[in-house]
């Protein structure tokens, strides 16, 4: 009798805990997703297209709601809401193959635009890590037919093995690579379905290349995905476009991501700037991120206060949206009162214990930079310096940054739990990994342990 009662209690507690950690209970599985699906027809501007959007379209046609209040109800993007939008919306709700979706994204000038994309999206070509990884996180690697660069053997291992390496680089799409791309398009029966890139790489899409895309009828989808919050929207939209399991995975990804965002906000949202932990972001080991850089945006989303806000000298020296290389090991010598340094590094995973130790020592703390070890540039700040893996899902990065900034509120175990949640989700780049095989957050004690 006692045993049975204990079992019942355990089951009830476990069920309650599961409901809390999933953040949903019996309600809408995506109710906490603040990202908006970037597809016309998403009339209520939420994370998906469903009957709720159709109700709004019906109300607009009936005159009980105003089109100006729901501009996304215009599913076919013709400037009005009528029966044709209703028909298209129904096709979208039915996830009917061959439906032409109007996808909202950026153009090469950074302005909002709408491009036509056939559903479900197939035969994509990707460029830039900040776009390629969201495609993979939405399990869209199977639909990649060409890519210009792949730098992470394991993290990007889910790219379709038959996809063509177009031989570009992270910095440039050469003319030869572009020719390979146009040849790839010409050789496919249905052509390339879309060209996907991150806004930070948009300089490679010159006017003549844009003209090539237009002539071939290839939609160019550009999103700014370097920031964690933006990345969630990108994964959500791409998952919808790929359809099927990709859509449900993307919703789960976005849900889990926003749970992290909300968890962080519940603790640090009411803090004044003076109460917040100050941080300096770095990248490429010894480059100091400037005030408006996306790395700083992510750290600020994690509840941090950029050090430039409390030290005007640092703020004026490192204003801008790029990064500045430290010209000497003295560069941070006068900023020793910063609370933490977050060093953003892109690190592949699938590491053994020995490989992890080598990475921590040789590729992080003792990496040679202009004759000095990286740790020499952070003299006096070593114990407050953390490497965070930049190619992890945005929400996982936020979780580790929240731990770095507010360790008392967000333990390392909590952040590891978030990573484990994404591993368990079934997103391809993390498939088969463990918390121990991924270099997620490396601190000074990890370095000392590795040296020992």
């Amino acid at each position, binding site marked *: 009798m006692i045993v049975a009662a204990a079992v019942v209690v355990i089951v009830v507690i476990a069920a309650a805990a599961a409901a809390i950690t999933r953040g949903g209970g019996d309600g809408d599985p995506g109710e906490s997703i603040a990202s908006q699906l970037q597809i016309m027809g998403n009339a209520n501007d939420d994370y998906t297209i469903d009957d709720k959007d159709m109700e709004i379209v019906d109300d607009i046609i009936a005159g009980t709601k105003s089109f100006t209040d729901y501009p996304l109800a215009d599913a076919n993007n013709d400037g009005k809401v009528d029966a044709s939008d209703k028909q298209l919306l129904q096709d979208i709700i039915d996830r009917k193959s061959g439906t032409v979706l109007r996808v909202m994204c950026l153009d090469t000038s950074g302005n909002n635009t709408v491009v036509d994309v056939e559903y479900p999206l197939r035969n994509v070509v990707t460029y830039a890590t900040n776009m390629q990884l969201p495609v993979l996180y939405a399990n869209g690697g199977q639909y990649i037919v060409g890519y210009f660069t792949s*730098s992470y053997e394991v993290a990007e291992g889910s790219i379709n093995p038959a996809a063509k390496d177009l031989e570009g*680089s*992270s*910095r*440039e799409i*050469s003319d030869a690579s572009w020719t390979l791309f146009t040849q790839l398009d010409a050789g496919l029966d249905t052509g390339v379905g879309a060209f996907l890139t991150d806004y930070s790489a948009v300089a490679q899409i010159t006017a003549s290349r844009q003209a090539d895309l237009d002539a071939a009828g290839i939609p160019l989808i550009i999103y700014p995905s370097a920031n964690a919050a933006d990345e969630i929207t990108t994964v959500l939209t791409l998952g919808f476009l790929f359809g099927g399991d990709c859509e449900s995975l993307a919703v789960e990804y976005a849900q889990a991501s926003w749970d992290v965002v909300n968890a962080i906000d519940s603790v640090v949202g009411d803090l004044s700037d003076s109460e917040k932990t100050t941080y300096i972001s770095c990248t*490429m080991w010894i480059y*100091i991120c400037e005030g408006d850089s996306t790395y700083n945006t992510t750290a600020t989303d994690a509840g941090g206060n950029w050090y430039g806000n409390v030290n005007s000298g640092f703020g004026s*020296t*490192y204003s801008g949206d790029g990064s*500045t*290389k*430290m*010209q*000497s*090991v*003295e*560069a941070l*010598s*006068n900023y020793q009162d910063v609370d933490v340094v977050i060093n953003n590094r892109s690190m592949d995973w699938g590491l053994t214990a020995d490989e992890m130790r080598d990475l921590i020592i040789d590729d992080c703390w003792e*990496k*040679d930079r*202009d*004759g*000095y070890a990286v740790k020499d540039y952070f*003299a*006096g700040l070593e114990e407050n310096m953390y490497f965070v893996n930049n190619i992890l899902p945005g929400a996982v990065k936020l979780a580790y940054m929240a731990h770095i900034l507010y360790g008392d509120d967000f333990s390392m175990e909590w952040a590891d739990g978030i990573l484990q949640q994404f591993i368990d989700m079934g997103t391809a780049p993390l498939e088969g990994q463990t918390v121990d095989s991924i270099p997620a957050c490396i601190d000074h004690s990890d370095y000392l342990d590795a040296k020992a």
Partner: protein
Amino acid sequence: MEYRATNRRKVAFVILFAAIAAGAFFLTLSFGVYDISFSDSIGAFFGHLAGGYVDPTDDHYIWDVRTPRAIGAILVGAGLSVAGVVMQNDFKNPLADPYTLGISSGAFLGATLSLVLGISLIPALSGNTATVVNAMVFSLFPTAIIILVARFRRMTPVAMILTGIAVMYLFSSITQIILVSATAESLSDAYQWRVGSLNRVTWDSLPVMLAVDVVMILLLWLLSGKLNVMYAGDRGAQTLGETAQRIRVVTLVMASLMTACMVCYTGTIGFIGLVGPHVARIFVGSNNRYLIPASAAFGAAFVILADTVAKVSGANGLPVGVICSMIGGPLFIWILIRQRKSAWL
């Protein structure tokens, strides 16, 4: 009497710029991003030497970072300037320097292979050590090619320098091909190396730099009499009992080795190898007995002062190569306008 007075002025020039370099050494210890007063920096320097207590942070930045950098500035300035003297002397050409002979482009190619492609001439080496070794070895290739070509086909000094320029363009084009496909990260590293910085000079770098610099400058100074013979031209040298080509090859190898040992640690610091000798020549004339120490003193003083400016320029310092050219170019034009006689011979 006038001859002795002239010589005293030449010696005075050497002493003056050696003193400036020495003074700049102590001055530059207090310059940099880390805030420290002049007196505290001097205190930290001598405190470390005496083994007394020094604030650990002061000690780190003054002794571990700024002192080797300052010594490196003196060595690089002296070495590159003397290398320029020898090359201009050997080829009787005022434009000869480590750049025009392809030494710098060779070093840059070697460094680029390491920084961008991760290729090390010695497979066991990696990181900065591989870059240093690559740069040193590749910087000697142009000189080797010039000497080999000259050995198999009798060449005039002009033809030899043109060979150096051809090698420079060849190496530069190979480097550009590599850089076209470089990642942003490695491209930035390569660019930083290209413009030259004393930031890379550490205590570990100094033994090689110091030994090669001192030995080569001393040997070249001892050979100053033979270098002077080169002014008479190849035939003139022959009438004086010297073989011009042999002197040229020996001194060129010495100057190239010295240059290689500097630029492999610092990257290609331009200007000083070309202009240092010209400025010194304006004041002490072309006699290598005075010109070599005068160029060394001027080069040392110029580079350490330029690096002092470089350390406090920009967000957190600028490469010294940039400052050298930025200050040195206008300064040299001003000196050329002010001086009346020809500085060359």
